[in-house]
């Protein structure tokens, strides 16, 4: 997030990967991808690849951590060792602890935890391949995983980072824009209510730029929210398609 080493915008004003300033990268989402988990989601976003497994509501062990009035949410956000430029040690780093904490706080917001006293809902997220914006992608995926697990929710979390690149506010920073750009603002919202559940920033921004970023994020999040809806609706037809494919292969 420091010195500009090279221009991050092309001569035609487009970004290094050819995107327009406010254009999202390609995103795909699939739920129910894991057999053993109660719910799951596999999401790709540019070159990000994220897998998320949900367990619960289940009894919490050890019991002295349990709350008699409600379930707790435990989130483990991890980067796979090979998902980043330099191999990461398998032991979690401070960044992973911080993100696990704030992702859990966002997820807390959308669940009816008082319905499950003494329980836990466990959300395990692993970034298999990292390409910028993983925390926004993680919550976008976790929401689908929670829905896949059949856990009652009062909203869907949808995230997108915005940021400043070569002096311009842009949508959905890539890995290189995140590292070499001038500022990064990860944002997660409940799209239907406009509530911000996650907001961070890095880099030097004016108050006006923050304001512009919030507006850009809102629009982008609207688009991603539609993809989430489609993924949830598509779930049943997907299963049918898969069965058909298997039949085809067996012929």
């Amino acid at each position, binding site marked *: 997030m*420091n010195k500009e080493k090279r221009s991050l915008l092309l001569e035609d004003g487009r970004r290094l990967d050819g995107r327009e300033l406010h254009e999202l990268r390609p995103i795909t989402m699939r739920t129910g991808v894991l057999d053993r988990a109660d719910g799951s989601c596999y999401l790709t976003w540019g070159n990000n690849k994220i897998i998320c497994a949900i367990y619960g509501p289940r009894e919490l062990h050890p019991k002295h951590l349990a709350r008699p009035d409600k379930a707790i949410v435990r989130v483990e956000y991890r980067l796979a060792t090979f998902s980043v430029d330099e191999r990461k040690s398998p032991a979690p780093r401070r960044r992973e602890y911080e993100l*696990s904490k704030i992702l859990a706080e966002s997820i807390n917001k959308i669940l009816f935890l008082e319905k499950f006293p003494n329980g836990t809902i466990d959300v395990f997220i692993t970034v298999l391949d990292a390409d910028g914006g993983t925390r926004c992608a993680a919550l976008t995926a976790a929401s689908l995983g929670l829905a896949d697990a059949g856990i009652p929710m009062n909203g869907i979390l949808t995230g997108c980072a915005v940021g400043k690149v070569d002096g311009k506010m842009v949508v959905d920073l890539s890995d290189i824009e995140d590292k070499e750009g001038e500022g990064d603002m990860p944002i997660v919202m*409940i799209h239907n209510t406009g509530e*911000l559940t*996650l*907001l961070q920033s890095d880099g030097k921004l004016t*108050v006006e730029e*923050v304001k512009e970023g*919030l507006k850009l994020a809102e629009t982008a999040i609207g688009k991603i929210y539609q993809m989430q809806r489609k993924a949830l609706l598509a779930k049943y037809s997907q299963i049918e398609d898969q069965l058909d494919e298997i039949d085809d292969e067996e012929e």
Partner: protein
Amino acid sequence: MRSNEIISSLERKYLSDLIAKGNRMDGRGFWESRPIQIIPNVVKKAEGSAMVKWGDTVVLAGVKIQLGSPFPDTPNDGVITVNLELSPISSPSHESGPPGPEAIEMARIVDRGIRESQIIPMDDPKLCVIPGKSVWILFVDIYILDDGGNLIDASALAAMAALANTRLNLLSIDEETEEVSLLEETEALPRNGSVASCTFAKINDTIIYDPNLIEDRGKSARFSVAVTNEGLVSSMQKGESGTFFEEEILTMLEKASERTKELHNLIEQSSQAPELQEMFRFDF
């Protein structure tokens, strides 16, 4: 004393009712700060230090410097690292052991506020001893001594004030063997201005600045923003399970821009005290 962490329902109701009537427990206005005292340069063994009393909250930050290897991708830059200990000394709710998620989050908020503001120019030639081989490493360690609420702002202020009185030893380098020796003489750590943090808490639907301990426990959401002396936002962090609306964020940014001007003044005043302070005279 784990039950200590959770606000009692009686306390919560009292707090809610007060806020609903436009009042705070300590009589402050919603945007008003508690009194702040900075005592710079209190630890003789540290290269820089400051104690901050912010309302009932007491925080001590110390800076140690030592020579070390640069990161491979920034071979000419110094290195800064911020650590925060939520010492059990500060509260019956805080347990000893390695920093938990709460302390890690606070350390990282303070770290980003400083790092992203580039207030300490890590690429300053004074921080590079032998390019690619030896640079100054700055360890900023923050100890929470008394938890009276709003630890983020007090910690950020203590860290900034400690950096503002940090001194580097001059060095002599043997050109042939590249052996480095420390001289007695020192110079100030390079610094371009200052950065300060403003934290807001949401209680019911009301936003207040600088939560005290009870307000901290009763809040549903938290928003912290670091602002440089040039008025730029160098880091934001929303915390807790509650949410904010966009217009609330914009209001808080505006209040923070205003408030941080006073904090920058406090930092500059405190940096004018080169002599070792008597911490004992500090009013705990």
